[in-house]
């Protein structure tokens, strides 16, 4: 079973957009804390939670309790995407007689706990967990608490109680975003260590300073500590919690307040302020411009692919790109599913398997079983029927579905019906078969063209640029419409993979900023450009943006 990676991140993207829609229409609300928990919510709602939107009180459903109730837009948006009510209802957030109250309320179907007053939700969840135990019911209770909320003494009363009663049907997430209403948590009431300077990133650099996990451990909990924005880590942590018997589990998730919107990220101001409706379309575009880096390990030492996977993981890759070549579809041979199976235990990072093989429909199950999370097959060796079969196999196994095209290939007409549901489209910018080739320049035009066609046909997935991607062209590939970047020799071929990948990200970020400045200009001229740039208060973002605007002549 795969991670269902793209499915989750697509839903997360949509929920974030709905949060912006709701809060900007309402003129108030809490986007920051809704965004810090967005990936956690996405994994719970679209991977684990058992529920029926048509029957919200179905007895055997899993329960979800949002204890940090001020992040209600984040809950409502997930309920909307899950189908409890129409997405357009998000526009009624906080309005008179709306079901979507300022804080979660039973008026809204799917809400399990009326939050708002902090520190109560964990105790409430314990009541639910005890009731399930009395009734011998197997359903689970998932609860999210905040770090600011952890100042409340009741959280610790509850912590002891859950431990005493060995509530292994209870899984709690601590949304550790380091920011509460007044300031950084480590300034207001340190959960780890007191922060002396004004730079919160100080806390991220030294894991020895993180104490909150120890607090929970000493209270008798099974404690898992993860990056709360990495889907694969969230999923593995929940799976581990489900298998843990005899203690409740808390997943301490390090997150970023306002995650995915640069000007909100790590800025305490965005705890409880709604975005200006004029800025909202720029934020929407920013959310559409999330990008991922997928290093291709065959560019490294083919005799020690295990090590290449480790290097990619250490470098903080989003995916590991696995080029499978069968010596028939392409002249070269790399490895097959048996190798993928061997590599699988090395890392939790999603495996992005690119099958350059003939008759993929005959082999695709092997690649699913080997542990691939995304499988891309080539348009040249599929037709409507075989791709349909592949699609169904992958979906049935929560593996994301990709379709690849060689430089000479256009999007086949049989593929059209699949477009709205496709997760990933690889547009090859080299002739596949070997690593280290130069980017074919005409691909820029091709991606721009395909990108336009795809968006007209309601494509919600990601275009992956693959072949000859390096620092010189990654920015323009992004502007063409690509959102996932395979790096072969330009990443794996480099000595310091982490630094190289960080440089890749910076280039894409810079291109994205340029795109957003242009968007701001289209929407509201220089005034809106300046207004938007001014929002970027944390770090040196603002200086960088002014520079980009200057270069674009939009300052």
């Amino acid at each position: 079973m795969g991670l269902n990676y793209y499915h989750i991140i697509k839903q997360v993207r949509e929920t974030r957009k709905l949060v912006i829609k709701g809060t900007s229409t309402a003129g108030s609300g809490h986007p920051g804390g809704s965004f810090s928990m967005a990936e956690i919510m996405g994994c719970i709602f679209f991977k684990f939670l058992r529920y029926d939107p048509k029957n919200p009180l179905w007895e055997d459903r899993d329960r979800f309790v949002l204890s940090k109730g001020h992040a209600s837009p984040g809950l409502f948006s997930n309920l909307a995407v899950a189908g409890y009510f129409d997405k357009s209802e998000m526009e009624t957030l906080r309005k008179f007689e709306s079901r979507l109250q300022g804080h979660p309320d039973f008026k809204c179907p799917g809400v399990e706990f009326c939050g708002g007053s902090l520190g109560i939700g964990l105790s409430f969840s314990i009541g639910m967990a005890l009731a399930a135990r009395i009734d011998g019911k197997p359903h689970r209770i998932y609860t999210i608490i905040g770090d600011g909320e952890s100042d409340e003494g009741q959280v610790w009363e509850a912590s002891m109680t859950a431990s005493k009663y060995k509530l292994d049907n209870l899984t709690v997430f601590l949304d550790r975003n380091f920011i509460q209403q007044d300031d950084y948590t480590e300034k207001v009431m340190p959960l780890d260590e007191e922060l002396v300077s004004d730079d919160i990133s100080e806390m991220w650099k030294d894991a020895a300073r993180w104490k909150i996990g120890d607090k929970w451990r000493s209270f008798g909990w099974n404690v898992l500590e993860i990056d709360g924005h990495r889907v694969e880590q969230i999923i593995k942590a929940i799976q581990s919690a489900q298998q843990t018997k005899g203690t409740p589990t808390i997943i301490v998730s390090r997150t970023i307040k306002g995650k995915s919107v640069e000007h909100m990220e790590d800025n305490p101001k965005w705890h409880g302020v709604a975005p200006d409706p004029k800025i909202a379309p720029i934020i929407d575009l920013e959310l559409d411009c999330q990008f991922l880096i997928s290093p291709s390990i065959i560019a490294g030492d083919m005799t020690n692919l295990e090590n290449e996977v480790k290097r990619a993981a250490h470098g903080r890759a989003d995916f590991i790109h696995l080029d499978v070549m069968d010596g028939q579809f392409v002249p070269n041979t790399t490895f097959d599913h048996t190798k993928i199976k061997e590599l699988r235990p090395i890392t939790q990072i999603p495996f992005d398997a690119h099958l350059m093989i003939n008759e993929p429909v005959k082999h695709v199950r092997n690649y699913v079983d080997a542990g691939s999370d995304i499988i891309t097959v080539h348009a040249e060796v599929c037709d409507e029927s075989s791709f349909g079969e592949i699609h169904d196999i992958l979906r049935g196994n929560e593996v994301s579905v990709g379709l690849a095209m060689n430089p000479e290939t256009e999007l086949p007409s049989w593929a059209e019906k699949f477009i709205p549901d496709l997760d990933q489209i690889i547009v090859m910018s080299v002739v596949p078969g070997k690593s280290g080739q130069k980017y074919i320049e005409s691909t820029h035009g091709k991606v721009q063209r395909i990108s336009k066609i795809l968006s007209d046909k309601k494509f919600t997935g990601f275009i992956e640029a693959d072949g000859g991607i390096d620092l010189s062209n990654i920015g323009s590939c992004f502007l063409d419409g690509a959102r996932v970047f395979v790096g072969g020799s330009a990443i794996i071929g480099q000595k310091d993979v982490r630094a190289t990948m960080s440089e890749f990200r910076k280039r894409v970020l810079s291109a994205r900023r340029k795109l957003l400045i242009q968007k701001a200009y289209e929407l509201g001229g220089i005034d809106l450009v300046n207004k938007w740039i001014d929002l970027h208060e944390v770090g040196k973002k603002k200086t960088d943006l002014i520079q980009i605007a200057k270069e674009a002549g939009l300052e």
Partner: protein
Amino acid sequence: MTEMTDMRTMYGETLIKIGEENPNIVVVGADTTDSLKTKPFGKKFPNRFFNVGIAEANLVSVAAGLAIEGKIPFASTYAIFLPGRCVDQIRNAIAYPSRDDKKGLNVKMVVSHGGLSVGADGGSHQQIEDIAIMRVIPNIRVMIPSDTVTVSKLVWIMSQTYGPFYMRMARSKTPVIHSEAQDFEIGKGIVLRDGSDCTIAACGITVHMALEAADALKQEGTSCRVLDLFSIKPIDSALIEKAARETGGIVTCEEHNIMAGFGSAVAEVVTETYPVPMRRIGVQDKFGESARDNEIPLLFAKHGITSINIAKSVKDIRSKSR
């Protein structure tokens, strides 16, 4: 000699009886389960009994979580630690959550050690604000039984009536007021003595004082109607209006601050239905103090809560209204 019985013992025994009949009855305590006499329930039904330690906020919130899942939790500790300490959790986790037409969650908050009669533990432990706190929270019903018969009947009724309840019991043994045959209904008061000259309305242990005062006044030829208004919210407006209309004056008595308490609740009805002179006997907006069991009458006397004062107030009303 009036028989004296213990409310907490009756509470614990009744819980076991209803627990046998209804598997959804669960009991939650906070390190006072021995005192509240709920421990035997825990012995009998270990899977339905939870002691969360000295953590009252947690107590009521865990109870709320049990209630949303269809359990009928009885959450118990001393009065001083429940309404006063947990008003936020009671409001937001129990009273506020309302799904469809169910108002609030089905939690029964039953406390002992209400009012001044706590005695020796002193002013810090004498909850004289709970009626006020609990009755202003929407959806919560407030009960103050006068004896063990009422306790037993109310526990049965609460277990079968959806919604959040607050019931306050006294620490010490109390005289038996009602017969086993007495019917109890939420929102209905009980006329203990009929009379035409004045009405004395009381709740909890002051009902006994009201009866003593009525007996004394009877000797002097004054006929008092005595009401046991154990259901403070909802209150029996019809019975109060009738008493006002037929007796022309009302004296209330409570071991609680006279502000926003029982007397105030009666006065709210009287002023809006049939205004007549009233006197409210109760704690005059100050705190209590320690008193050993045999000194408790002195403590009450210091606060003016006595049958003699009730009788005086009746006379006062009657003299003014002539």
